[in-house]
């Protein structure tokens, strides 16, 4: 599904990624761990097509060259990024945003746009799964949301948009135990043979709930070690020092 070859990325002339390789197949859950500044968020931003990065190397998504696609085209083709810091957008109603977003994605897939009634049905169902109060959806997008609410809102968007590749950028940071469990359940319930996940995290904590197939250690813009779920436990004990 995703094949990254020798990816380099620069921002303001600073090298962040230095020849990163990664292959993700449908149904797999990959976790990327690494210390601060190792390039984890940069990888997420480059995959979602954020401006301001100078890149070299190859990123193929279902055989298509990703760098030729705009952010919204990538989203429409099923790449979803749960932001580390979801933005507050005053004046934009959360429901209106969700509907616009879902209909853009549906349109791109050649599906019919949803009317208000059908849309609300979907939202109602998905938000109750995540324990999100409906009132919350009539508020302005992320404005005045707590850290946990913002992260839950990201997972809600994922479940509504039904992406193929979901990238979770430190979705666990700032969550208490209960919220963490809800987020993890949200992810687990969406996991199936066709979808893949790329989970970026600092800690083993989230991986106790979402079992990864592979764990990669990122250091100085490169993957320096790959292992199975046990690697995370080992990292938790020994720290990153042994790998970098």
């Amino acid at each position, binding site marked *: 599904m995703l094949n990254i070859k020798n990816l380099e990325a620069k921002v303001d002339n600073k090298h962040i990624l230095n020849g990163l390789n990664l292959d993700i197949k449908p149904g797999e859950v990959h976790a990327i761990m690494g210390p601060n500044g190792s390039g984890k968020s940069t990888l997420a931003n480059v995959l979602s097509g954020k401006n301001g990065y100078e890149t070299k190397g190859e990123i193929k998504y279902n055989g298509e060259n990703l760098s030729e696609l705009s*952010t*919204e085209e990538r*989203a429409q083709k099923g790449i979803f990024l749960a*932001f580390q810091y979801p933005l507050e957008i*005053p004046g934009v109603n959360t429901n209106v945003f969700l509907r*616009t977003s879902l209909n853009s994605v549906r349109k791109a897939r050649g599906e019919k746009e949803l009317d208000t009634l059908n849309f609300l049905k979907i939202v109602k169902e998905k938000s109750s799964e995540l324990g999100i109060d409906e009132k919350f959806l009539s508020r302005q997008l992320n404005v005045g949301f707590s850290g946990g609410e913002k992260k839950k809102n990201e997972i809600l968007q994922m479940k509504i948009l039904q992406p193929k590749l979901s990238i979770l950028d430190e979705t666990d940071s700032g969550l208490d135990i209960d919220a963490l469990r809800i987020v993890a359940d949200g992810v687990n319930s969406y996991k199936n043979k066709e979808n893949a996940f790329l989970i970026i995290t600092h800690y083993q904590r989230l991986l106790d709930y979402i079992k990864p197939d592979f764990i990669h250690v990122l250091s100085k813009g490169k993957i320096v070690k790959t292992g199975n779920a046990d690697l995370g436990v080992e990292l938790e004990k020994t720290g990153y020092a042994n790998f970098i």
Partner: protein
Amino acid sequence: MKNFYDFKVDNIIGLSSKEKEFRNKELDLFDKNGFPNKREEAWKFTDLNTILSKNFTNITNDYISLKEKKFELIKEFDHNYLFVLDGKLVSNEFKFEDKNKVSIKEYDYEKQTFVRNQNSLNLLNNALASGGYSLEISKNYKFRKPLVVYNHFSESIKEQIISYKNSLILNENSEIKILNYTDTNSKNNFFVNSFDCFKLKKDSSLKNIFINKNRCNCYFHNYQKSDLEHNTTLDNYILSTGLKFNKMDIEINLNEEHAKSSVFSALSLSSDEHQEIKSSLNHNSKNCQSYQKIKNVLNDQSRGVYQGKIFVKQEAQKTDAYQLSKALLLNDNAEFDAKPELEIYADDVKCSHGSTSGSIDLDSIHYLKSRGIPEKKAYQMLINGFLSEILEKLPEDNLKKFLIEKLGR
């Protein structure tokens, strides 16, 4: 320099000799400096003289208004109306109201209100005004439906100035919502210089909305002078866009305790539109409140100007005054200028202002795009979101719906 205008008091018919004398004096005062330029503090950011001299060859005041003509009523919501053609009151209808409680007349220039201040266009209005209306609402009468003032301008006006004064008196405990609806699709250039005088008696309330139906090529200047008594409320909503030039100069005097006033504006400007709001919120008595929120979206070569002043007199303790202007610049040829001013002589007050101007937040755009929303749509969503805060404050559901749709054009 050769003048690009030629104004004569004699062009106005039916003036008493006393009136003529007064008007000629005002015109002389105006002629001394001509149209305002940046030397006038009220026009700090705008050289109107240059703007007009580039767009007019000879402005005169010899326009003779046409006979009554047909106009289109707004169908979306029930309302009363005044039909004002080229500044003159032509017809009115108050079918939703108790007619004994409303008095509507032509403006009486023998008892006119006039101001002479920093803004010299007021002198010109004093000299040339004719037409206009006087509306008075009886004590304890609350309008059931809004009043729409259809300000229609004929297509035959060209290179002319139209000047008039309106007066509105709200007696004790009365209430009205007015939509000032400018309607012209003239391709011609002309100048409208109007003056509104509002008197709000104890416990009365006025909501005053400005919007225009079409884009047009004309130049508008309006001076509003409002005097507020005890426990009154005056809210202005400025939503007019699509005008070549528009300046609203608003003077609100909070003269007695618990008077409240606000100025809201949501403007989205494009091409070479120029919109200017100047406000003076004068807190002359204690325990009054004022609130101003101005939002501009500026595209192409458009220009937005906001000069807002909060003045607090020594005796106006416990004043609560707030002012915020925000602008989104979408093009390097667009410009936003602001002068948020505080002049405060009382110490037990809460006064603040803020002003920001800048680009649209690109991280927010990225966020929307990452959810599959196309770039153009993402911009539109953010712009609408930016303006929606003001539109949400509009009164009356049907009226609000109408206005929001109108602005979405």
